[in-house]
């Protein structure tokens, strides 16, 4: 498993390769050797994590499960982490975050992602329809702190809703691979039985692995699952009577996470609840912060602020800054704040210029600002 251990001095072969790449890069300036190698091997790169799709499976009506073989820049992952996957749709590159779902201790060099097509999800719909074996996609190294603890907790509670099953699936698979035997409760909410990702495998694990309890809830089909309705204290009590002493990991739609936070806060267990959300918090302009001028210094464009994040304002002004997740995670859109103050739309924190680096997708101007864009 990829733990936080620092790598030792790399082997000689790797150091020789690194020096060779330096010479090749000088010979291939100004492009670098990557631009030539990718002519014959699209997934090879010395600067970008890329992966070849080696298997495509569609196990539920709305999902697609991809098995990927990343190149040498992939440095493994911890169960629960995600990668930012980029695909091209109609000539435009789109990037989204997806959690690895496989066993993080596996040494086969493969990773698995399960993508659920959402009505509004351009990337998920595209992958669901068009992903094919042999295709190359761009990734980032694994990110995120929503991870399985290094030491086995006395009780592990994994709660997920819909496609939020992906990181906790990896946690469960990793837990089994590590041979852990303390109790685990896997509480999952999906619309129907057919929509539930990994249902058969989970049922198999629950039957064979020690101390794994699977609780399935099908919110659109009362009476067909183990419980009915949405997450409540009663659900927790029924699924995992000892929940108030568990280490809990929750991933899913905002209402599920809000309820979980509320229940754990009331039990005084907030510190033992870990959450992951890939849904964008709604941005609402607060009265009094909307006024001001936004200047995009490098483009010599100025606009009156409309109170939305700088990224949206930049795009509305016709600029096309590099972006990634658009939700404050990936830092692809990081730009220099030359002057003024911005508010982090997710945390409410204020940041002052000059010379601060801000993620423009979640930074809302407070008064006049100038950014290097």
């Amino acid at each position, binding site marked *: 498993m990829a733990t936080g251990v620092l790598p030792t001095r790399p082997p000689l072969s790797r150091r020789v390769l690194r020096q060779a790449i330096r010479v090749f890069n000088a*010979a291939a*300036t*100004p*492009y670098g050797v990557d631009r030539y190698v990718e002519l014959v091997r699209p997934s090879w790169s010395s600067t970008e994590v890329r992966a070849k799709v080696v298997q495509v499976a569609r196990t539920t009506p709305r999902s697609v499960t991809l098995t990927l073989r990343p190149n040498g820049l992939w440095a493994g992952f911890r169960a629960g982490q995600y990668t930012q996957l980029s695909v*091209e749709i*109609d*000539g*435009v590159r789109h990037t989204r975050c997806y959690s690895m779902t496989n066993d993080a201790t596996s040494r086969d060099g493969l990773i698995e992602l399960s993508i659920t097509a959402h009505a509004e999800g351009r990337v998920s719909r595209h992958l669901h329809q068009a992903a094919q074996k042999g295709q190359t996609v761009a990734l980032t190294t694994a990110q995120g702190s929503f991870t399985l603890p290094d030491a086995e907790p006395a009780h592990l509670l994994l709660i997920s809703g819909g496609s939020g099953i992906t990181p906790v699936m990896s946690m469960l698979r990793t837990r089994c691979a590590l041979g852990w035997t303390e109790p685990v409760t896997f509480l999952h909410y999906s619309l129907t039985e057919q929509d539930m990702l990994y249902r058969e495998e989970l049922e198999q694990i629950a039957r064979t692995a020690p101390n794994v309890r699977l609780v399935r809830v099908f919110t659109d089909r009362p009476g067909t699952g183990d419980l009915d309705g949405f997450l409540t204290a009663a659900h927790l009590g029924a699924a995992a009577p000892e929940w108030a002493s568990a280490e809990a990991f929750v991933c899913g739609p905002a209402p599920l996470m809000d309820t979980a936070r509320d229940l754990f806060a009331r039990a005084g267990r907030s510190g033992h609840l870990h959450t992951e959300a890939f849904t964008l918090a709604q941005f609402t302009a607060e009265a009094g912060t909307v006024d001001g001028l936004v200047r995009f210094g490098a483009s*010599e464009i100025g606009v009156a602020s409309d109170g939305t994040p700088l990224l949206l304002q930049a795009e509305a002004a016709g600029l096309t800054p*590099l972006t990634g997740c658009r939700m404050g995670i990936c830092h692809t859109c990081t730009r220099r704040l030359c002057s003024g103050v911005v508010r982090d739309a997710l945390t409410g924190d204020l940041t002052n210029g000059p010379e601060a680096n801000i993620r423009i997708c979640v930074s809302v101007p407070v008064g006049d600002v100038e950014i290097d864009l």
Partner: protein
Amino acid sequence: MPTVAEAYGLTPTQLDALEHELESLRAEVAGQLGTEDVTYIRRLIRIQRWAEITGRASLFLGFLPPFWLLGAGALSLSKILDNMEIGHNVLHGQYDWTKDPALSSTDFEWDSSCPAKGWQHYHNYLHHTYTNITEKDRDLGYGVIRISAEKPWTPANLGNPLYALGLALMFDHGIMWHDVDFGHVRAGKKTRAEAKQSLKNGLRKSGTLAFRDYIMWPAFTGPLFLLTLAANALANVVRNIWAFIIIFCGHFPQGALEFTEAECEGESKGHWYFRQMVGSANITGRSLFHIMCGNLSFQIEHHLFPDIPARRYKQIAPQVREICQRYGIPYNTGRLSRQFGSVIWKIFRFALPGRSRHSQPAPTGAPENTAAELMAA
């Protein structure tokens, strides 16, 4: 004295209408951008890389004349494609909408002595904003050639043809020094520190490329050192001459009009579009020719929409021409021999003092009276 626009009988209202027509044309093309455009530019990048590989590899057999020629030729092709259709256009941000880091105007670096960042500032910003404004567009003669009657003659201008030849041979270095811009430092428009930084960047970049072409690859070929060096130098010169010809045909042929700072002060967007159209000149040719020009043979369309992928210029050219006709705006186009011939004529003519009667003529198809004559009237 009437302005150029007035000389062409264009009122501010008409210029506004012109603006709207061009903006809707732009929106129409922008809406069509997609897979096709990305596939095209990637294909060109692939061709360019294979040309580079072919060129470098052939020179290992450079003692055989056909391989030496193939090497020099393939490297010339690679450099021309890199500088014109790929580099120039990517650095304009024509492919930024793809969000592909390999096609991003902020990250791209090209095979030219001038660092991409410096070039973007003076070209994308200064030249494209202040096109053909005598006092502001430093691309008019690149600071060394007197190409306009508006510029006072000095005896040094007698060397015009020689300077042009020198610039043609060393065009990429010329562009680099152009970016450093000592002229603006003397005029107090650029600080010494800024120029020094540009110079440092420029020397580092051109040094890296020179090391690659004149030391590293020749050394790789061992005993063929000098042959490889000569082929690489030839490829650089071929690229330089070609770029010089195409770029000088963009704004300097007979009929491309110049403007004064005064008449462009606080200009409307419509006037800006008008200035781009009458300040630029196209070259006719076949598809391959346009690709080798980086589609700068559609200089008029490029100046109207510098960040629309250049392969689309050919598609919109008939519409732009039709708009020009309706507004009575000249659309300057012609064969390469004609356009470049008139550039050469200007280079020689303006080596000598005096104001040519033809300094601001209206090109073919425009009203009989030249703008200059109308203005004098």
